[in-house]
């Protein structure tokens, strides 16, 4: 589809990973593009740019959202959490989900991983102790071509146990 440059622009305040950014944004710019290009937060991936693969998943006010289908100007004043905002970026301490993905081989090529982990973050926030079926439902929107999902599911179960222990 041809995307024409649209003249309409807006100055928008985005809150990303707890930091405020005042940005001049075109009305047709997606949140995925703004995060990746304007804020250099390239952990958010674009796998299809049409809302089918989940690689661009971020949390907006805690809700997992496809940033490739979200216009950035719609995110004014909302809390956006990306993969870079998990764990403690200052100390390098990982979120228990990230730790569990490393330890349980939930990662192969890694391209789906950030979006997958953001979906898991939302899932475990809501349901810290999900069943296998609930885990599958929670990541149903996130495609992975490498792992066959089993080690991802095991990573999520391990993350759930880690969170339970804290």
């Amino acid at each position, binding site marked *: 589809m041809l995307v024409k440059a649209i003249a309409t622009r807006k100055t928008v305040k985005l809150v990303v990973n707890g930091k405020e950014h005042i940005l001049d944004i075109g009305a047709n710019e997606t949140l995925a593009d703004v995060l990746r290009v304007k804020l250099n937060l390239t952990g958010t991936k674009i796998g299809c740019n049409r809302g089918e693969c989940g690689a661009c998943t971020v949390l907006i006010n805690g809700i997992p959202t496809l940033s490739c289908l979200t216009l950035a100007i719609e995110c004014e004043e909302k809390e956006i959490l990306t993969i870079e905002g998990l764990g403690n970026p200052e100390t390098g301490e990982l979120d228990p989900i990230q730790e569990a993905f490393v*330890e349980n081989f939930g990662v192969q090529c890694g391209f789906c991983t950030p979006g997958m982990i953001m979906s898991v973050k939302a899932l475990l926030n809501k349901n810290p102790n999900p069943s296998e079926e609930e885990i599958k439902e929670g990541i149903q929107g996130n495609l992975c*071509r490498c*792992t066959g999902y089993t080690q991802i599911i095991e990573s999520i179960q391990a993350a759930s146990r880690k969170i339970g222990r804290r």
Partner: protein
Amino acid sequence: MARETMKVIGKAIPVMEARDKVTGRTVYVDDMKAELFVKILGSPHAHARVKSIDTSRAKKLAGVEAIMTYKEVAHRLIPFGRYQSCSAMDEHLRHVGDYVAAVAATSEAIAEQALELIDVDYEVLPAVFDPEEAAKPTAPKIYPEGNVRGPSLQEWGDINKGFAEADVVVEDNFDVTPQMHSAMETHVCMARWQGDELTIWCATQTPWELRGMVAYFFEIPESKVTVLSPNIGGGFGGKYVGKYQVVTCLLSKMAGGRSTKLTFTREEDNCYLRRPRGKIYAKVGARKDGTITALQLRGYFDIGAYERHYATWCSSLSYGTISYKTENARFESYSVYTNHFHAQAMRSVSAPFFTFPIEQVIDEVAEKLGLDPVEIRLKNMPETGDFVPATPYVNNSGGCKRAKLDIYPGRQMIQQVVEAIDWKRKWKGFGKPAAINGAKRRGIGLAYMMEHCGYCWESVATIQVIVNRDGSAIVHSGAQEIGQGINTTLRMLAAESLGISFEDVAIVTADTRTGQYDAIGAKASHQLATHGHLLLRAVEEAKQKIRNLVAPVFNAKPEEIEIKGKEAYIKGHPEGAKPLRDLLSTAVTGSAAGAPGNWLPDVKPGFRPYQPVVLAAEVEVDIETGVVKPIKLVPGMFPRRMINSAVVRGQAIGGAVMTLGMSLWEEVKYDEEASTYLSRDFTDYKIPRALDIPEIENVLLEEVDETIPPHEGLPYGGGGLGELTCWGGPAAIANAIYNATGVRIKRSPLTAEVVLEALDKEATK
């Protein structure tokens, strides 16, 4: 070396890249910023000729910095691997999406707008899509010399005699349709010229081949081209070399060297590469006791417009065909150009084409003879020490070597796999479902094959190890990490052989300036066998150099010195060990390269490392809707020795789910009327999602010849494995559907539509 004495090998050590991947710090090519964006104008016709092309309107658009058409690259053929050379652009367009023009502009939107301003007048030509149609002399010619390559012919014994000796002969024909690679990261390439030096950042499995290709194209020495390929978002055989890389580099050059980046959209990626399509005729003869006397296949493969590499060449053919110890066999294949986008290697690319027909016809033979599917396979399965093929070749256009099987635990594997699927309890006979619940029928099925995964192609690679003064080590490698864990695996091998920890080993890779080479790249699951083998030889060389240096300190001969765990000592006297730090004044380097021409070496003289693979499937078929629900998969494989047990398991499960997708849901669809592919996205090309995954139980067998030193033959006995579970889904599931319904499905994928149509056809018989 016995497992219990090993400190690193066999452990589940997290892959070294995982931490950066889970934090989003890993930089993939599309995460890098370029000055210019590249967009490609694709052909709207499946077969056409450019009568005229005018780019003047597009050139006037502000922000357009370079435009290329076939005129810029006329008559400059790119040598692609094994097969068809082609221009980066051609006035002769051979498939929908074939390159008409490309633009580099300061924004993606401007580049897209510019494409609309290019005026093209096409002469539309008749197109052909079916490989058998395209093979006819009257078919539209995609190349002046015709559309057919072949036949490739592998034959042994006397096929006519074999059929004459048979009590039962079954003949059938099959159609195996393509699967696409569908890596989550689409194809992407970035290029920049500085003077006459070119740097390319590319998600490629074959950086060395890419370097050679562009150096040839631009007529510059390979020393002036650097390919960087650090992080790749999935490959599966899809990310080799292509015209797009040349286009990106040329546009950078035309734009004064400014960096250009081409990122495929998902729609472009889904119309770019795939497995071939195979139309196969199969015929099998057997005696009453189940002994197979003759096995014959004839196949026509749609390889698309620009097939490259080894989609259907003969030695790929051989592993699908030597699986059974029949004395008479004939395999004949034709690769045929069509007006579809092209085929390329993909994770045991040819295997589904041979297993889907053979494994179904073997079941048909068993049914006629009143044998169980397990029984007939056990009866005809070769064993350790057997020759494959059973009798000498009479035709061998693949140049395959007849050799003995070194270790072949096929029987053990099939027995463990059928136990895991609970075969004895569930198998009630052909067409007799394991269970019935309303419209739902449960069935089980089996597929077996012999594969030769992970060749040691030692002549194509070089590798280097640097032992630092403190005894830690750095590996310089040309192997390409694509998520399969080869970097971690090589580090583990180096650590084990030096007697140091995994953390003590670093690896430098994905940069052609290291000089550590792999002519073929991450293909055919060969990197563990090839680079692992060479790495251990490099370590031996470094150790020998250190022995020579330190022997005088110990008043000993070099051969009396042991180098282990950052120390040197006289063998048998570790109490007298001295740290290497106190003995060496520099780092010591060891390197290894295969002897030219030495590819596929024997593991020991006259013996080849083939591997049995077995897949059992249980499915539930809804006979009212045709929907097939997978219940359980049991992939069995023989990695010989697992270097990293969790990485092996990840490959096993990942492959099994990929073949499941090929079996049930993934279908490339083309609308001839509209000249458009319908499978351009993940809604219409359905790859497996989490909820689609059934229970998966792996059978992983390990066995090595402990008499062979770790650095001879396969590294510590470990064999390639990335493709071992990615072939059998369509065959095993078709057999399971037959068990559930008594209806044989001869076309893949086994979608609800295909299954329902077959069920209806059977019902109206």
